[in-house]
């Protein structure tokens, strides 16, 4: 795919994790000549780019939603583990009401075992001591938060490229209108 290298824009990577950067156009005339496009082909090319960006945006937004749901879940787990740890010292049993099925609750007496079972996914559940469980959950939480940060940065980069492409589209269009007016006048 042809991409103009006229941009003197500093500090913008040519692509980020598979997302191509939209090169900034200094001068529309030069841009069109370099690419060998006329205005209409350029506009079509830019529109196609925009479509591709939108598809990637959908994907990233879905990933972001997943992560944003995962983080409070991990925090709830950490809460429970710390509650169990707190009870451990006191020797009392933790009494809790839990949902057996939708709308049906039962009472549980959680003994002072000092360990919990963690669901690791893929039908696997392992028993951990409270301290180990804390470690694991905290690490998972940090990883999730770090992934979310990277994802948000990706989305910002992507949206910038969309903006640049939209502005370039408008400028090519304006340039074309301008050219037609000049031709008509002469």
């Amino acid at each position, binding site marked *: 795919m042809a991409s103009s290298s006229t*941009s*003197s*824009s500093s500090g913008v990577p040519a692509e980020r994790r598979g997302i191509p950067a939209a090169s*900034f156009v*200094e*001068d529309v005339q030069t841009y069109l000549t370099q690419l060998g496009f006329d205005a209409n082909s350029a506009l079509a090319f830019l529109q196609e780019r925009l479509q591709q960006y939108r598809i990637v945006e959908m994907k990233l937004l879905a990933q972001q939603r997943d992560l944003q749901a995962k983080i409070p879940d991990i925090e*709830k*787990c950490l*809460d*429970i583990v710390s*509650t169990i740890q707190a009870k451990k010292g006191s020797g009392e049993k*933790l*009494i*809790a*009401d*839990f*949902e057996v099925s939708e709308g049906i*609750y039962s009472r*549980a007496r959680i003994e002072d075992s000092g360990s919990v079972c963690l669901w690791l996914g893929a039908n696997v559940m392992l028993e951990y001591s409270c301290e180990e469980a804390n470690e694991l959950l905290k690490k998972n939480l940090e990883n999730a938060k770090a992934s979310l940060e990277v994802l948000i940065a990706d989305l*910002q980069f992507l*949206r*910038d490229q969309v*903006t*640049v492409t*939209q*502005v370039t589209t*408008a*400028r090519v*269009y*304006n340039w074309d*209108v*301008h050219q037609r*007016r000049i031709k008509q006048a002469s």
Partner: protein
Amino acid sequence: MQQQKGSGSEVEVTWEDQLNINKFGRLNNRFHELEDEIKIAKENNESLEDASNELILSDEDIVRFQIGEIFAHMPREQVESKLEIMKQNSSKELEKLEEEKESVLAQMAHLKKVLYGKFKDSINLEED
């Protein structure tokens, strides 16, 4: 949200202008995210207030306090202190979000001045 009208006028767009436009776009996105987050934070605050009030009205010694998916039986004082802490954290969070919102709005207002100053009618930075 923003479009340049095809007036055919030849105001040149520099890289700096593009950066400003990009920044405005980012700020606008953040602004909408913040509005949603603030709404959720306010609802959270209210729920905690309601819970607190219910607790005062009730005269049970053992209260069922939700942790994760279960309702743990806890002595009343413990629940009171937990609620207090949660309420404090929630208001701090809300305050932080409101402050960020103010900052974002201020930056957007500044950028609007700069961009409208250069492009006047050729650019539209309003919500449609």
